[in-house]
């Protein structure tokens, strides 16, 4: 069905204001709704057939914000929005909200989350909708119709509404880390068991970096923080007045860029110390070796990553300072085998200010 003109903008404006309010309380939503007199969205002289069609399309639009991948706050806002729209529609009998079978478990999980986090007002609103029989339980989300469209309309929803959690977080979960830790310990014990010295594994058996689990966790945490900061910067950048603070925006985004560069650099720097951990996608990356600082094992060296990005040289220490994250330290007592890779270009790129961090 073709969209109701202007409706998406209005809904996104309301949900955006709700997101800004940084709350999930229904009171706040009701205030925002009231300010905008949102119930008038169904007004306008029209006959019953058209009124039904418009109400159906309105509910369909609002329903999309209720499902993943939108952020939790947006989804709660969408729930409130659906409640408001369902109750203020002028159709008799009321048009229903379509929920597809595949989305239903997500919604039940969402409801459980609401109850667990004690957002009882949101849970109450949802229950009220259920009791009012506001839902149609359908096989597919969109009702099909058969008109040849001149062009396929694509709904592009705002990026800010999307939930920042992503694949990195879903891959490296607490469970995964715990398991990795267990396996790692077990491995260490095995190595000790077959070594001559029972308290320490043989030097010859040291093929991996001992603290890689900790490192992995740090990296993921940093990534998540970076994402959140980026989100905030993005929102801030959007808010500030364009004419006045254009330069500020640019520098913000620029420093964001360099922050990103330094953060990425640091992540790679750490991960490159573990040869076995280097992912396949990074094999092509040029790496250069540095001799070990401590000089404990002169025959072995550690690897340091060089970022092949001459353009990003402006990742200055003051920017890097902003990204301090509390991290655990683990004593390293094994070095890495020496591997050289060919790269004549890399000789030029040097980042002397970068210090290796333990």
């Amino acid at each position, binding site marked *: 069905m073709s969209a*109701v*003109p*202007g*409706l998406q*903008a*209005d809904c996104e404006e309301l949900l955006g204001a709700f997101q800004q309010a940084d*709350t*999930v*309380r*229904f*009171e706040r939503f*009701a*205030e925002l*709704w*009231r*300010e*905008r*007199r*949102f*119930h*008038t*969205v*169904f*007004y*306008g*002289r029209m*006959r*019953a*057939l058209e009124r*039904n069609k418009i109400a159906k399309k309105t509910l369909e639009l609002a329903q999309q914000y209720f499902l993943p991948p939108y*952020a*939790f*706050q947006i989804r709660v806002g969408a729930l409130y929005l659906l409640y*408001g729209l369902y*109750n*203020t529609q002028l159709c008799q*009998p009321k048009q*229903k909200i379509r929920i597809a079978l595949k989305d239903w478990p997500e919604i039940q999980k969402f409801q459980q989350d609401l109850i667990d*986090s004690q*957002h*009882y*007002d949101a849970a*109450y*609103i949802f229950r009220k909708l259920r009791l009012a*029989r506001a839902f*149609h339980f*359908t*096989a597919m989300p969109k*009702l*099909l*119709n*058969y*008109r*040849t469209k001149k062009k396929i309309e694509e709904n592009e929803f705002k990026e800010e509404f999307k*939930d920042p*959690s992503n694949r990195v977080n879903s891959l490296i979960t*607490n469970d995964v880390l715990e398991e990795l830790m267990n396996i790692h310990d077990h491995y260490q014990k095995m190595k000790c068991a077959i070594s001559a010295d029972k308290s320490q594994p043989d030097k010859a058996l040291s093929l991996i970096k001992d603290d890689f689990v900790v490192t992995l966790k740090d990296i*993921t945490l940093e990534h*998540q923080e970076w994402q*959140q900061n980026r989100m905030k910067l993005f929102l801030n950048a959007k808010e500030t007045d364009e004419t006045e603070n254009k330069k500020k925006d640019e520098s913000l985004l620029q420093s964001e860029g360099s922050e990103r560069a330094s953060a990425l650099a640091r992540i790679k720097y750490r991960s490159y110390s573990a040869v076995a951990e280097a992912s396949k996608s990074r094999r092509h990356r040029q790496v250069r070796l540095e001799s070990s600082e401590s000089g404990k094992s002169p025959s072995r060296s550690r690897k340091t990553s060089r970022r092949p990005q001459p353009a990003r040289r402006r990742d200055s220490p003051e920017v890097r300072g902003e990204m301090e994250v509390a991290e655990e330290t683990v004593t390293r007592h094994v070095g890495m085998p020496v591997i050289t890779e060919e790269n004549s270009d890399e000789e030029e790129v040097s980042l002397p200010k970068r210090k290796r961090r333990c």
Partner: protein
Amino acid sequence: MGSLIHMQEDLNNLDMLSILQKSIDMLMSSDKEEDPDVISEDSSLLTLRIRKKALERREETIIVDRACRQETLAYEMESHAIGKRPDNPTDIVEEGELLLTLNIFYPVIFQKHKDHKPYQTVLVLGSQNLTELRDSISCVSDLQIGGEFSSQPDQAPEHISKDLYKSAFFYFEGIFYNDRRYPECRDLSRTVIEWSESHDRGYGNLQSVKMEDYVFNDVSLKIGFPYLFCHQGNCEHIIIITDIRLIHHNDCLDRNLYPLLIKKHWLCTRKCFVCKMYTARWVTNRDSLAPEDPCFFCDVCFRMLHYDAEGNKLGEFLAYPYVDPGIFN
């Protein structure tokens, strides 16, 4: 590591409920005098500003703004059965019943239907037999009467094609569901199955089963995928399932009303060439008395023109009974 926003506000439950109720009331307009037909001048909503412009444009261009009969019909059909309950409680539709929405396209091919073919929309219950749907499909080809009757216009036979050619089949997902209720019914799908098996044409195993043994719950279906209904040997209708959902409290719960027609395309009927008032019932070919070939007549005009007072045939012509597709309007 989810990004749940944790609100540490501690709300006393009773307080919260009263706040909640107040907020809920805030959603509705407190101003009972508000007229939903009027859009205020200073609306903050983009939707309303656009709609107001569109309405104003409409007021300027349309002289009389009321529902035309097609719109009235469409609305009536869509809503006439909503909320109906059966007189007999055993006819009630149970909770958990599935409701399918089918679009059945007309076989008629007019030039003006190039872009979107006309269709009717039928609601069917999951527990209904396929034969019930078959019986409910009203197609004009069922009413055709074969034969030339210029010499004996009063003796157009009672039998319509529906009675003579009873075979029909549905095709869903590789299975042909044939109507075998009457001894006259033949397996129309046999031709197709033999054809597909004769060479390796890349069609999987096509099966043929009896329509009357199956209800919609047993049939495997894809939503949005075109299927076929064929009757009269060569009258083919495309069927597309647009929606499957659970039955709802507001739906029509009278089992006897299903399959329920909720949308129909309005086809203009061909009128008699002479009076231009009545729907055509006869068509003539090679008619010396008619200005064009073929020519359509209503019953009265046909007899007046082609037969004299005693009922003798005047002139040379061939006459066939004609059933207009718009007859179901």
